[in-house]
Every structure is written in C-alpha cells, then in structure tokens.
C-alpha cells in the first residue's frame, strides 16, 4: 500500500552523532569520582574454591577494595534463579567472576587483580550437553530443582538437566506409524558469539541516599532495574538505569548479565560509581554465548511428499547457568518444524548445564539452530522421495488455515511464503549453474524459513508522546537502539500516524528508567510490531485530545471532526477549522480563558493473546510470524577446500517495508553473520573447558572481502498486528544461510554436512575421502 512517509528511505536521526564521534557509548560515560574494576577469572572451568588470598592485591597502588563472592547469599534470574554475581564456593565455567579489584585507574585494578591467589580443587568438566547428561555425571548445580523458577519450567533434580520441555501435537510419536518414508539425521550448531564490536560493560553507583544508579550496554534497562531492586532490597523506583548508545547487540546484551556482577563489586564502595568494560577476551568468556544446540530429528512422510510426523530431541549445551538459555531451548524446540505443517509432533528440548559460559539470546533465538536440521532434512527427504525439493516444500508450507506445532492456526496475514519461493526460484534457478571447471565446483542451495518472536506474555512496549507548541512532536519510548534503526522507524510510523512529516518527530536518544516509559526488553524482532502499535495508539489518543478541544472551539460534536496534521475541521465543511498549533496546549479564547487539554498521550502494546505453553507444550506462543526463502550460490576451490559464497539471496514477506534502505541493511547484516557461523565462527574449547579462541584474530568474523553480493527483496502481505501492516524482520535473515550453504555444498560436491562451521580442512578431507566426486 502507498503511504506518505512509510516505505521511504529516511536517514537515521543518529547518523550524524555517530559519524562525528559524538555518540556516547557505555565506555564513553565519565562520572565524578569514578573507579574502575578488573575481574579475576578462574583457571579451571569447574572447580571448588578452596582459598582466596587477596592480601598482596590489597597492598597494590591505587587499590580501593578487593572483592570476592564470600558472603554473597543471593541468587538472581528471571526464569530460573540460579545465577550468582560472583562465584561463592565453586566456579562453573572458565569466565566466571572469582574476585575483583576496584582501583583509581583500570591499569592499577588490573595489576592488583593479577596478585590475587586462588586455590582450587578441580572437578570434571562437561562442555557438551550429551556428556553432562550421562548417568553419574557430577552435578554442576547440586541445587538443581531447588532454585525458584517459572511454574512452566521442569528441572530434573539430581541431574544436569535444568529444564525439559516437551511438546505433543496430534498423536505425537505415534504419528510416525502413518509415515511411508522415514528419514533421520543429527545436526550440530556449536557455540558462537554475537561479537558486537562494542564489548559489554556497565557502571553501577550505590549512593548514600540508598538509591542505585546504573549505566549499561544493554537492551533491558527495566529488567536490570527490577533485578537490582530485588537483590539489594530497595524499591524498584529507587534504581535508575541509563542505556547510552549501544554498539551492536545481536542478542547477548539482552537479559541481565554482567550488571549484577558490577553491582556486587560496586556495593563494597558505596558513594563511588564503578565502571567495568569487558576486554574482547572477556566478551567471549564472560558474557552470554549463542547456540550450542544439537538436533536429532526424525521426519515421516507419505510417498507423495505429504509430511505427517516429526520427532525431535534438542540437546542444548546451555552453559553454567540456565536462566538465559532455557527460553532459547524452548524456541528452538517448538520452531524446529520450520515453515511446515506436521499433523503429529513429538518434540523434546533439554536445557542442560555445561561448564561453558551461559547461552543467551543470539539473533534468531533458537530458530536457525534447529531449522538447519529441518532444511537439510527437506533436501535429503526430497532426494529419498525422488521429488523436486521445491515441490516437497511447497506441498507442506504453513499457510492460511494450516496449524503449526504450537497448535496456532495460521492467518493469511502471517504472509505468503509461496510468493517468496517463487521469487527465489526465478532469481536463482532460472539460469544455468556454472559448470565445474579445473579449479572449482559450483553449487546452489536454498532454505525456507520462519520465525516467531519468542517473547513473554507480559512483554510490552510503552510510548509517551507529546505535541509541542509549534506542532512538532516528541516521542519517548524505551526501545534500545542497537543499530537496527528503530529511531528511524519511530519517526516514520509516528509521522504517518499523526500525518506530519517525520522531520517534525524528535525521538529520544538515551533510555533512562526515570523518564522513559516501561518496556520489557527490546528483543525478538518485535520493536516495529509492538512499538509501532504503541505509537499508533498514542497518536490516536493524541488526535482524540486535539479533536475534543477543537469540538469546543468549533462548537460541534467530536464525531463531526476530521484531522489532517495541520488542522481539525468540520467533515462536511472544511472551511470551518482550527489550526493544530492553536489547540495543542489547549485553546486560548479571546478573554484568555483556556479550554481543552494538553496534547500528550501515553500508550503501550503487547502481542495480542500471547500465552504460556500449556501441558502439551502448545499455546499461543508465537502469534506473529515472518516467512522467507534464502538461497546461496557458492563455489568450492578444489585445491584448498575453501568455500566462497558468490551470491546470497533473501526474500521475506515483511508485510510492509517501513524504510527500504534500513531493511536491506538489516537483512544483509544478518545474512553475513550467519554466513560467518556457517564457514568460520565457532567457540572452541580445550578438553578442560578453556576457550581457546577468545579474540577476533582467532574467532573469525566475516570481513569486507568475504561478503558476497547480496540480492534482497520483499513481499508485502499486510500483517494484522504491526503498524501499517509491517511485521518483524530483525533476526530472520540469520536462519537460512547455514542450511542453504550446506545444501549448496551437496549440490556442488555430493557431500552432506551435518555440522557447522564447514572449514576448508573439513571440506578438503570430505572431498579426498570421497575420491572422484560423482553427482
């Protein structure tokens, strides 16, 4: 649909501050009397702490305080309260905080931190869920089952299983009896890091008046506020959290992570703000990781390609604390069915404690890990059935009236994946594939994908809107701008809703819980959808106020009035009108008596009818879906086994494009992140649980020269929930690259891979053992 401001490429309101170096990120915040913290990490990934000797560190220059976990009696967490701010009796992963030094400078803090001596008694280390689940495995949390947890979670006391989530649809596993063809496979999506270029960091300041003020490189100021208030026994309103500009998130700056540790440290030096910023190494070892998901999948179909049943076991190496991975596992489990309808589902997800950093959100939130399995299995099943892989998928796509694993009926307004498939087919498959030559094999592959938000039923986004005397509008929300461009979206949606140019909409910069409206957290590709809805609701209320005032001025009923951005006027006689600028602070009559209300409003928006899972693991736990199809065109160098992605195509049904330039950038960035995961990125552990590659020069992010040519296109089937028909797209482009590339590798060489990253060594070895490749 044509809109006046929506659908056009406005520039970001924060671009100028970012190109001039004036944007303030966490490490740029300077406060009076600020002290610096350095945190000691353990030598073992799993060990009892026998003794900590801080005496030498205390005598070092500049040292104000040395802090350990001794005496820390509280746990925290929003799903399972199993987290501690600093290790107390044992360490459970290699990046865990063991002790910290607060000093006048960071250099002094670091020098003193190295003088702390700790004696450990090492325990067995498990880096993979399957090892931690073995009978007789040492418990990483002896308290498993005793921690407070959400009533929907099912920990298994006496094991390392922090939660078992089980979903049954139809006849469940018995449905497999209806299948004529059955295919099984096991796939591994290893631990990775979001690796934002800005490392995590926080500042916490315990004040003499019993209030707490904090700054964090985070997307959840209100969770931090509530968590700190609970842990330190102060009213929520006495904790003030600021979020400055955030230098990339991609998931791992959601949920409360490093803030509690910095708060624990700062609580020992009341009166002084304490800053801690992760080194790059700490960003890998001591903040949240992504993925770590093994999928064992069984798909049953009829001979004609009709899918009937799916069984899957999801083994999630969730890390040392389960508060953050538990929802990732659940999302990975119920979304492992991909964009297809199965009459019968039996899906189990295990969140397992491992001696690795905790897994948290990573762009895609569980979807890419298990849809890697689904989309590889669809290609393999098509081979087995001697069917065209497109035809097989199209026969089973979720579309209007079909029912997904959760039991949700799909609406027409969830979008049209058939159209996405049609466009990708035309773009990629109507031309001939290059023929194998002396140096290269060539291949192409595709994947059809879907994503739901995986939020929380109470998740909401607030909006404060006020119209100024000149008709310009200030919008304050608490969506964290991490680069995704939500400030531009707010301007355009508010402009459209208020019928004023986006240039007249000024958007907030930092978030401050003292002034910003409540927002749960900025996750799940949901800002445009929920935040946009909140903006429209606020605009409607604001326009209603203008009309109510105008009704008095024009001596008529409100329902005779229209609003066009400049004026409010009589519907049947537009000559009778009053200018918005004359009524937005109320209307001043001839004798000075002022009537009417100030044009300002408050609103919020949730996903409608979003619920917790029921006893079958089903429920209204998706509500909003975005579908798409992605394809990779690759070549493989015979001599080296190197895989080059020459072109990558993404087509999504986003309902309505708000800003073409921004949405293209978002999709390209996501696709490249996942190309990185497919070909280069993996957090490596030694058998002792040490992370062996916690640096950019070892954990390789895709560089300029490795970025393929990108083809990005959008289908626009209007959504029922989002503003002007728009739906979520922030994460979706990360889902298809891994299966599309692995399918392309098969197309090129006849080799099936079941895990990523596919390194040149793996590729070369596979080609060698295969000998002369035959298709």
């Amino acid at each position, binding site marked *: 649909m044509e809109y006046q401001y929506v659908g056009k490429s406005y520039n970001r309101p924060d671009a100028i501050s970012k190109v001039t*170096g004036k944007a303030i990120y966490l490490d740029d915040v300077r406060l009076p009397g600020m002290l610096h913290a350095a945190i000691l990490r353990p030598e073992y990934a799993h060990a009892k702490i026998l003794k900590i000797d801080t005496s030498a560190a205390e005598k070092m220059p500049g040292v104000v305080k040395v802090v350990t976990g001794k005496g820390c009696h509280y746990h925290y967490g929003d799903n399972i309260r199993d987290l501690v701010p600093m290790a107390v009796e044992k360490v459970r992963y290699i990046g865990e905080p063991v002790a910290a030094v607060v000093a006048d400078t960071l250099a002094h803090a670091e020098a003193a931190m190295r003088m702390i001596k700790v004696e450990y008694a090492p325990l067995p280390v498990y880096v993979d869920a399957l090892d931690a689940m073995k009978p007789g495995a040492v418990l990483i949390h002896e308290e498993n089952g005793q921690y407070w947890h959400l009533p929907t979670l099912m920990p298994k006391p006496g094991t390392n299983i922090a939660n078992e989530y089980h979903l049954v649809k139809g006849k469940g596993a018995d449905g497999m009896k209806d299948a004529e063809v059955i295919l099984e496979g096991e796939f591994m999506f290893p631990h990775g890091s979001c690796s934002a*270029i800005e490392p995590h960091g926080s500042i916490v300041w315990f004040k003499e008046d019993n209030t707490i003020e904090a700054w964090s490189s985070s997307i959840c100021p209100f969770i931090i506020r509530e968590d700190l208030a609970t842990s330190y026994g102060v009213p929520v309103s006495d904790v003030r959290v600021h979020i400055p500009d955030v230098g990339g998130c991609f998931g791992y700056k959601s949920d409360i992570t490093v803030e509690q540790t910095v708060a624990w440290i700062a609580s020992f030096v009341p009166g002084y703000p304490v800053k801690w910023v992760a080194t790059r190494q700490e960003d890998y070892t001591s903040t949240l990781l992504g993925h770590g998901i093994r999928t064992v999948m069984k798909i049953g179909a009829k001979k004609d390609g009709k899918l009937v049943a799916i069984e899957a076991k999801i083994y999630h190496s969730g890390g040392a604390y389960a508060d953050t991975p538990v929802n990732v596992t659940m999302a990975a489990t119920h979304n492992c069915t991909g964009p297809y309808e199965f009459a019968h589902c039996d899906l189990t997800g295990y969140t397992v404690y491992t001696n690795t950093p905790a897994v948290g959100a990573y762009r895609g939130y569980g979807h890419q890990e298990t849809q890697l399995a689904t989309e590889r299995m669809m290609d393999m099943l098509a081979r087995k059935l001697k069917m065209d892989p497109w035809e097989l998928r199209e026969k089973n796509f979720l579309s209007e009236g079909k029912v997904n694993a959760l039991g949700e009926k799909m609406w027409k307004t969830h979008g049209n994946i058939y159209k996405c498939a049609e466009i990708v087919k035309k773009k990629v498959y109507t031309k001939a594939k290059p023929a194998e030559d002396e140096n290269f094999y060539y291949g192409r592959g595709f994947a059809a994908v879907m994503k739901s938000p995986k939020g929380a039923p109470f998740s909401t986004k607030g909006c404060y809107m006020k119209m100024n005397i000149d008709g310009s509008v200030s919008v304050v929300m608490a969506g964290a701008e991490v680069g995704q461009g939500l400030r531009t979206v707010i301007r355009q949606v508010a402009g459209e809703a208020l019928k004023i140019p986006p240039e007249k909409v000024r958007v907030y910069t930092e978030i401050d819980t003292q002034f910003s409206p409540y927002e749960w957290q900025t996750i799940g590709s949901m800002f445009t959808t929920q935040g946009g809805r909140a903006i429209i609701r606020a605009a409607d209320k604001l326009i209603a106020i203008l009309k109510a005032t105008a009704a008095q001025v024009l001596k008529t009923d409100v329902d005779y009035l229209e609003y066009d951005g400049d004026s409010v006027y009589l519907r049947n006689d537009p000559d009778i009108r009053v200018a918005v600028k004359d009524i937005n602070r109320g209307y001043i009559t001839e004798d000075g008596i002022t009537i009417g209300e100030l044009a300002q409003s408050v609103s919020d928006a949730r996903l409608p009818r979003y619920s917790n899972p029921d006893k079958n693991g089903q429920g209204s736990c998706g509500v909003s879906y975005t579908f798409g199809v992605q394809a990779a065109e690759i070549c493989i160098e015979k001599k080296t086994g190197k895989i080059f992605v020459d072109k990558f195509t993404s087509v999504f049904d986003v309902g309505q494009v708000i800003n073409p330039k921004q949405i293209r950038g978002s999709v390209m*960035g996501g696709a490249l992140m996942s190309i990185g995961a497919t070909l280069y990125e993996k957090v490596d552990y030694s058998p002792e649980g040490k992370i062996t590659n916690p640096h950019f020069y070892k954990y390789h992010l895709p560089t300029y020269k490795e970025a393929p040519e990108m083809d990005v296109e959008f289908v626009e089937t209007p959504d029922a929930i989002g503003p002007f028909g728009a739906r979520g797209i922030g994460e979706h482009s990360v889902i298809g690259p891994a299966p599309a590339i692995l399918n392309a590798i098969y197309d090129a060489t006849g080799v099936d891979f079941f895990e990523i990253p596919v390194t040149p060594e793996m590729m070369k070895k596979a080609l060698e053992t295969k000998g002369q490749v035959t298709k």
Partner: protein
Amino acid sequence: MSEKISFTLNGKPMSVDAEPEMLLIDLLREELNLTGTKRGCDNSTCGTCTVVINGKAVKSCNTPISKVAGAEVLTIEGLAKGMELHPIQKSISESGAVQCGFCTPGIIMELYGLLENNPNATKSELENALNKHLCRCTGYEPIRDGALMAQKLMQDRK
C-alpha cells in the same frame, strides 16, 4: 618515566607529560576525553580505534605516544569544520553504512587516510582499506556505497 611529548592534535598544538609507552588510544580516550576513537578488541584486529597520523591511517591501540612526537594527529572529532561535515562523514551518514555506529569512526578515518592522499584510489585499494575493519551490522555493502559516494564528492572537489 614520564616525558613531555608535543604534537598537533586536530589542527591544534598539544603537549602532554606522559609515559612514552602509553598507547595513543589511552591518551586520547582517558586523558584527553576524545571518546570518538573506539576500543573494540585486545590486539589490533577490529580497526575501530583508527586515527590518522601524518596523513596515514594508523591503529591507535598499538601506537605508543612516543611515535606521535612532532606528528600531526587527526581523530574523528577533528574532521568536521563546525557544522560542515567532511564528505566522507556525509556520505557514510547517508549510505546506510551506519547502524550501531561503533565501527564507524575507524572506517571514516581509514577512508580519510586513503582518499585525502589519493582521491582516485583504485577499487582494490579501497577494498584493502575496508578489509582492515570489522563491521557486524551491515554486511559491508552500504559501507562500500558510502566510500564510493565520498570518493566521487572528493574527486569533484579537487
């Protein structure tokens, strides 16, 4: 032992008393509060700390300040003339190259080092320059677009 080191910073004379081994990034950020120069890694890989020294793009995180004695140092804060953005800043702000913005100052300084010396830099020179910088947001295409827009503006300026 601290030493007196003099240099030109963003066009103005600057003199500091500091340890000569101190890294330029620490001087800029911690002593001079020029926080536009960012720190993204521990070992000179990401490129976000890039500044321009004597016309050449250099990583400030592995440059001891002894090396800038007598030199002309330019940081991101020194590029705009009042309200007038440098063509590279203008192009990068409009091409979609800015998302989170954390890699942006380093990339702008890299392009400044390249294009101010040689506005006719070849495609491969441009690629080699951009390949030194990590961006996690954009997929790089909008950065290339911004670089090419800037190159055009700078060629027309001459």
